[in-house]
């Protein structure tokens, strides 16, 4: 099943870790009631995607490493997203004096 691997760690092991990290992030994103924890779950999901990109770039695309360039762009976008997300969170907190996700339902029909 795990034949053809270069080193002791097969590619699939990295993919399994990344899949688990991604699913944990999705669960936290759905179930967190604290808005800061939602942002933390998004960061977990982005990290899972980065692990996938890096492992593919190392095992399949070892000489051109496009995956590493992509993961650098993902890191950049994640930093911008965290900054804007936390700023939105601060201004929400200033207006509603709560960070409970269930109370942010102004646009709900």
């Amino acid at each position, binding site marked *: 099943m795990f034949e053809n*691997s270069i080193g*002791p*760690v097969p590619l*699939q*092991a990295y*993919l*399994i*870790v990344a*899949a*688990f*990290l*991604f*699913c*944990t*992030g*999705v*669960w*936290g994103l759905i*179930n967190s009631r*604290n808005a*800061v*924890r939602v942002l933390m*779950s998004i*960061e*977990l999901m982005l*990290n899972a995607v*980065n692990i996938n990109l*890096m492992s593919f*770039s*190392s*095992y*399949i695309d*070892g*000489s*051109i*490493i*496009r995956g590493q360039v992509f993961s650098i762009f993902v*890191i950049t*976008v*994640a*930093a*911008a*997203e*965290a*900054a*804007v997300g*936390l*700023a*939105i*969170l*601060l*201004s929400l*907190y*200033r207006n*509603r*004096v709560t*960070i*409970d996700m*269930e*109370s942010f339902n102004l646009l709900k029909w």
Partner: protein
Amino acid sequence: MNLAYSAELICFLILSSIIVAGSLAVVLLENIVYSAFLLGGVFMAVAGLYLLLNASFVAAAQILVYVGAVNVLILFAIMLVNKKEKLKPIEGLKTRKILSGAICSGLLVLLLRVSIITKWNIPGPASIGEKATERIGEHLFTDYLLPFELASILLLMAMIGAIVLARRDISNEPSKINDFNNGKSLTEKEIPLLSENTLK
């Protein structure tokens, strides 16, 4: 199996167990400050995985950006909004959690099946190892130049947007303060709407 192989295997096992346990703790712990610090631990472990994959530049960027910037930003946000509040109980919370847990584990099973069953095209071309940093630089200044420049514009926009969003809209103009000092009554002093909430 020689020493380097087993060392790499042990490193991978330790790092992946840190990632799995840490991410579960980030999502499940009650205290959000513990979650934030454990999130930093998860980021460090992911950087360790990048080192195992011969990507020292991305590992350094991961530590600098995630642990140094994003995690600190999250800690700042926690400190700014950290108020002990009783969350209102909502009906069916337990069912909701179990249902979403089932959906997420189904997604996990699907992803695991895909990643194990698919015949990946390995071994690919030989890894260039420590020359990866040079190659990333070549990529960034030749074929990925446009995304690189767009990333700088994106960062500038995010910075300005964050400042505009998080700015406190209290207009303490010097003229008003002077008027207040010159003996006008307290009721005439304008108290902006936003600060009323924050004073509570």
